[in-house]
């Protein structure tokens, strides 16, 4: 269920970024919003890998 929520969050953010861009949001803010999304995905992946290695070591 948590993974579903993570996927939904990503879709939600992507949708907002798309709406923001198509409605003419300032480039600086839009760029940072995209960076935010990328950071979010990377951070989730990093945590997931860390969890896996923890599970393997135990």
């Amino acid at each position, binding site marked *: 269920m948590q993974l579903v*929520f993570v996927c939904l969050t990503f879709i939600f*953010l992507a949708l*907002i970024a798309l709406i923001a861009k198509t409605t003419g949001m300032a480039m*600086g803010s839009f*760029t*940072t919003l995209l960076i935010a999304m990328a950071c979010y995905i990377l951070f989730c992946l990093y945590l997931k890998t860390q969890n896996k290695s923890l599970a393997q070591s135990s």
Partner: protein
Amino acid sequence: MASFLPDILALFFLMALVCQRLGVNLQLPNDAYQLLTYVLLITIGLKGGQALAYSANWALLGQSISVIMLGVLVTLVAMLLIGTFSKLNTIDKTTLAAHYGSVSVGTYAVAISFLQLREIEFEPQIALFVALLELPAIIFGLAYLSRKQGQKGFDLRTIFAHKSLALIVIGMLIGALYGEVAEPMVKNLKPIFAVMLALYLIHMGALAGQRLSDLSSNHMFIISFGITMPVLGAIMGLTLGYWLGLSVGGLTLLATLAASASYIAVPAVFEQAQPKANIAQALVASLAITFSFNVIWGIPLYAHAADIISRL
């Protein structure tokens, strides 16, 4: 070049967060942090009270009631989201939801600065909404838990006897009572507000960086929730603001308030009233995730949405 950068205050926050993660601790001493919060809260209260003295009317009563309902609604939506997508127990679920139903004065101060830099006007009654939105989520959360635990009630003093609320109310009362007489004091506070806010954000950035290490086993949910909930809150705030007929500035501030999560008042109250609640987890979500999200990306996004809505 500047157009590609985030807001100036957001960058202070972001840099402090990065420094903390790299091992450079930029946190202020506790007394200095307390002084900064006093100045910020009193300034917000004074300005709001002063403006209210000129514009108080009966319509404000209806607006205030609807804003209180917004606080309860945001808490309910947060509880629904947590209940559906996580396995948190009732106490932790309600504690986390109450953090999101209440507001963060720090985020509000950043939003005010954001609007002032762009010379966007906003309604004076928003300062009153800050004070009003602090409480409904706390009362609702504690009442819900008392009922679930079969208790008769809870101590109201733990809710009202909180510093941040008291300071805003004191500032508003003095501002409203003295009106023009308080003008020189407000004028003197104005130039230092931005500097104080920058220092406050350096401290909060360092604190958020430190809190990131406290992510528990629910980290995937907490991160997702900490990003989704403020956007949902902002949508609710924008809807109410549009219905109340607020200006672009007012819409932005109400959206920011609904999107923000408390990290001072709610943890203090719940720690006292519900000792078994996982406060650390709620603080990671509200401070490390949501505060960061709102300061860096949220506020410009809400301002943009407010601009579109006000043109409808």
